[in-house]
């Protein structure tokens, strides 16, 4: 899974990885330092014990010279250049030394210290213990120096570092897994919120369910309030539009009928009527596609349109075949679907000679509605003309010449769909609507 850099998940995981990494490295360094102290401490205790034994065994002979007691029995002091050395000095002169030194001498610093760095005869690093002491019966400054090879300390450390690093790496992996789980669990509610929002966009839900986590509840409540407000604003706008239409068109009707039949005012009135209609429709439906959470089943709308057109259909003796999938739904408002299907079916009723066929089916995320008739149909040029006239809908044009088709094309385009005109197998016009589909409520769970 590749996450974008600006995602919350990437940020949380990145931050967790950085902090855990820093903590683990610091922990490793601290533990390694403690272990090193412990191990060097053990070596220092060993060299210290040898030095104490040498001091205890040392004595002054009759000539006032330093005489070493019994040499340490540890065989490492016998092995040449083993790094395990001891040396007794009297006033800076070597009085006795371990066989492992051969003919070399140690040159420790003057100071007296228990555990410190030093260099061996071959320049190898050593761990040095040195004590300056005096013995009764002698005024000389006596010193004992015992060393252990630094390499042995390092080897012991190396043996410890590996398992330490592995354990910390395992701990790091466990922490990483824990933080991934934590992030996933923490963001699950956010993911669910996103899914619920997508369902609203797809027209499967009208409002967000209240999230289980307290932090997201105000967000969901705010979104729901926005959706509700959106609907209310649109409903109010619709009402205004309806009132405006009524207050303009009623006097227009009176004016039209008051003029003598051949008065040029009739053409002006018809033009005003078209302009009012165009602008009101525009104002009404341009808001609709932005309204979320809408689902309109196609079949009941088709039934309603046929109810309105029942008179003309019966009078013309037309047969109407409907083939609508039960789950065919439009992700938009009922009014807009009614307007599109209504105009197309009305057109088909006007031209059909005996039969009309209405088909509605869902294909993926698209709803296809076909309205066909067996009338005279249109030529290919007229198909194009009828659709392009949509751009000039507010201008003058003889009524009833494909204006309805242009209205439908306009509405379909507002919803991101299209109206396509073609020849029907029935012989007449086939008007095809392609619109965004809404998934049926029963298919949601799948």
């Amino acid at each position: 899974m590749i996450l974008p850099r600006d995602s919350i998940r990437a940020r949380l995981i990145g931050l967790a990885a950085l902090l855990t990494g820093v903590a683990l490295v610091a922990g490793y360094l601290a533990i390694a330092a403690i272990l090193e102290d412990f191990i060097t401490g053990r070596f220092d205790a060993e060299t210290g014990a040898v030095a104490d034994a040498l001091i205890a065994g040392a004595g002054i002979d009759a000539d006032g010279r330093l005489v070493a007691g019994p040499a340490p029995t540890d065989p490492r002091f016998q092995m040449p250049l083993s790094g395990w050395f001891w040396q007794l000095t009297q006033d800076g002169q070597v009085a006795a030394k371990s066989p492992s030194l051969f003919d070399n001498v140690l040159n420790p610093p003057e100071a007296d210290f228990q555990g410190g760095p030093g260099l061996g005869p071959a320049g190898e690093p050593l761990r040095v213990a040195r004590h300056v002491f005096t013995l009764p019966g002698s005024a000389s400054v006596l010193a004992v120096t015992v060393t252990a090879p630094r390499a042995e300390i390092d080897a012991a450390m190396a043996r410890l570092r590996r398992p330490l690093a592995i354990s910390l790496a395992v701990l790091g992996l466990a922490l990483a897994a824990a933080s991934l789980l934590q992030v996933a669990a923490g963001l699950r509610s956010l993911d669910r919120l996103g899914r619920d929002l997508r369902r609203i966009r797809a027209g499967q839900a009208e409002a967000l369910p209240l999230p289980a986590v307290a932090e997201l509840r105000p967000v969901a409540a705010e979104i729901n309030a926005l959706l509700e407000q959106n609907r209310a604003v649109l409903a109010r706008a619709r009402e205004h539009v309806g009132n405006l239409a009524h207050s303009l068109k009623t006097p227009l009707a009176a004016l039209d009928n008051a003029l003598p039949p051949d008065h040029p005012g009739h053409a002006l009135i018809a033009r005003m009527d078209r302009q009012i209609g165009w602008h009101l429709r525009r104002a009404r439906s341009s808001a609709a596609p932005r309204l979320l959470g809408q689902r309109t089943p196609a079949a009941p709308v088709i039934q309603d349109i046929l109810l309105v057109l029942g008179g003309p259909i019966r009078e013309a003796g037309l047969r109407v075949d409907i083939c609508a999938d039960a789950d065919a739904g439009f992700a938009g408002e009922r009014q807009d679907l009614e307007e599109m299907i209504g105009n197309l079916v009305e057109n088909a009723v006007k031209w059909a000679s005996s039969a009309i066929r209405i088909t509605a089916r869902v294909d993926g995320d698209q709803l296809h509605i076909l309205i066909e008739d067996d009338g005279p149909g249109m030529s290919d040029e007229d198909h194009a003309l009828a659709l392009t006239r949509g751009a000039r809908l507010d201008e003058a044009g003889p009524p009833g010449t494909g204006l309805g088709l242009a209205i439908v094309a306009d509405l379909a385009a507002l919803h991101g769909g299209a109206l396509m005109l073609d020849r029907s197998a029935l012989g007449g016009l086939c008007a095809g609507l392609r619109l965004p589909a809404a998934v049926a409520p029963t298919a949601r769970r799948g």
Partner: protein
Amino acid sequence: MKCLIVEDDPTLSSQLAAAMRDGGFACDIAADGTQGEFLGTTETYDLAILDLGLPGLPGIEVLTRWREGGVTMPVLILTARGDWTDKVAGFRAGADDYAVKPFRLEEVVIRAQTLVRRAAGHAQAVIKAGPLRLDTQLGVITRNGLALKLTAFETRILAYLIHHQNRVVSRSELSDHLYDSAADRDFKSIEVVIGRLRRKIGEGLIETRRGEGYVLRTAA
């Protein structure tokens, strides 16, 4: 024929009433929804023309209440918005036809006549009654192909009888459908007009049933 016009614009409603009277209807006008609902439920009409955008009670509500109250007269709705939502709502509430504003008066009259004819059970525009023919759209009555010279009131009576031929039509029913509510009802003048009609269309077609009314008899 008597029709109820429910329209709040006085100019338009008087234009409609004039056109409907020319088309052979007696007309009552209601200027708001409440009055329209009252008239529709209390008076007898052959047809109602109902504007959907009414002050007081919305047109859809008026229509719904009429239908719920058992009023069966054909209703033609007038819509200003002209969108399908209005039409669907109107038809669901029980409308029979619609006209979108601005409309031509003649068109509304023809639709009104068609609705009345269909409501009386006649599918064709021309209704036959024995030797008589009523062209519902032109409002012309012919006898054996020759146009009868009738006054407007005579045409109204005869058209009503032709719509309801072979059925006894009482005088009060006849007057209900001939006069608007404001007019003085006068059974005597109906009787006089029936007498004149008998002379114009030939004896034997309109029978008087004493105490019951009149019947236009065309079937054997």
